[in-house]
């Protein structure tokens, strides 16, 4: 199984870019499953389903959305397995500049909005600096010079990433992104670790747990089926 984890700030265009990319994969008759994670509300999973992609929706509610995504990866993979998919695309809620939801063997895709200005790549942290692919959106709204500066700033933060200039309205960049999905390593859920630690706070991930399997987690945990439980003393 190849797992693609897509992160980025809200409104950057993750869903629009993914819709075009999933369409490319659907046209190639590739068997792909998708998961859309959001915090409180989303209808985006219906848009993925409308183009024929089996899509699971998850709302993190009271749990940190990136932790929720990581915690539920196993169940998401089960979903993709049930659909006989070879590729699973997970769109995260994408809120915090401090977290990066990528694991070692996923393909980490960061979607970043070029209109947020050339200092944004310096601010956003690990979800940009540890990504494999950085997708720049809304570049058509700024000048070529600003685009080039933005690109340079991304490479300062992440010199080895592949940069794709995309447009969520026209579908520009979708074919290129779709072709990157094949480059993902094979995902080993049991051994899989995060690339970057999450912020230190009070949950198991917050205190530095890097192992992703459910057996290692404590605290208030929410399952993808909506069941919430407390695990611990």
């Amino acid at each position, binding site marked *: 199984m190849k797992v693609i984890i897509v992160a980025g700030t809200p409104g950057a265009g993750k869903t629009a870019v993914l819709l075009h990319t999933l369409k490319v994969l659907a046209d190639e008759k590739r068997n792909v499953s998708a998961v859309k994670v959001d915090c409180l509300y989303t209808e985006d999973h219906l848009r993925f389903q409308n183009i024929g992609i089996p899509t699971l929706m998850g709302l993190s509610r009271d749990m940190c959305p990136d932790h929720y995504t990581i915690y539920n990866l196993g169940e998401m993979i089960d979903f993709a397995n049930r659909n006989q998919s070879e590729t699973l695309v997970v769109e995260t809620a994408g809120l915090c500049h401090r977290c990066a939801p990528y694991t070692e063997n996923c393909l980490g895709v960061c979607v970043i909005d070029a209109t947020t200005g050339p200092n944004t790549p310096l601010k956003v942290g690990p979800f940009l600096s540890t990504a494999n692919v950085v997708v720049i959106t809304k570049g058509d709204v*700024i000048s*070529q010079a600003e685009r080039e*500066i933005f690109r*340079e700033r991304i490479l300062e933060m992440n010199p080895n990433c592949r940069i794709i200039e995309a447009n969520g309205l026209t579908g*520009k960049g979708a074919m290129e992104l779709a072709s990157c999905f094949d480059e993902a390593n094979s995902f080993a859920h049991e051994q899989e670790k995060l690339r970057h630690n999450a912020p230190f706070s009070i949950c198991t991930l917050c205190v530095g747990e890097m192992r992703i399997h459910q057996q290692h987690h404590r605290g208030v945990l929410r399952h993808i089926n909506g069941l919430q439980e407390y695990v611990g003393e």
Partner: protein
Amino acid sequence: MIQSISILAGRNKTGKTEKFERLDIHCGEIIGIVGPTGSGKSALIEDIEQLAQRDTTTNRQILLNGRIPDPDLRYDPKKKLIAQLSQNMNFLADMSVEEFLKLHAKCRGKNPNLVDQVIEAANALTGEPIRKDMNLTILSGGQSRSLMVADVAFISDSPIVLIDEIENAGIKKHEALKLLSGNGKIILVVTHDPILALMTKRRIIMKTGGVEKVIATTEKEMELSVHLTRIDQELLQIREKVRHGQEITSSFFNAETLSPEFAE
């Protein structure tokens, strides 16, 4: 050296193959791109800017000197052979004019001392002067557009120049076009302005996302273009007078009131 750029046909918005096979554009040529809004003019410009290799929604392929270009040329701004003036009227980057131009010069591997030259050239195209300590975001539409033109001319200075609607924002379009089109460059200009369109050697007609046909400018059109340019110059002079608070006494119905250049 860039001798030519070739556009190989892709598909229009309805999925039909475009009505041409291959269009070769040679150095020194100025080509117009015309068509209603939504007809695919900007998408064609974008295909060229990113040297599309049948990997964009239009399925077009772009060749340089008749060959598939090296992938580095597509992405590395230091090697880029294409400069683009897009439709945007404003900068969004929150930094000073000087900082911005220096950063861009660095991206393009150019001398950072170009800054003064760029600002001087920009100020020749617009009204209120731009200063290097100004923040980009406070520049007016005309100032931004002029700075973009000068930036493309000096910092992005490339053998292929793509221009999307230079007539926007009330800058001096003829001077701007002259600044952008250096010797031997290939220029593609998207325009709704008949004067600019007729000044080109050939023009690409766009319809529903595809190239409909390519027309060579006729002798008659070239003559008309000269005439139209004269009318346009007269309009510009009147515009400048209005801008500077002068009373307008000229009238197109009374030839004596027009400038001597117009009467020629």
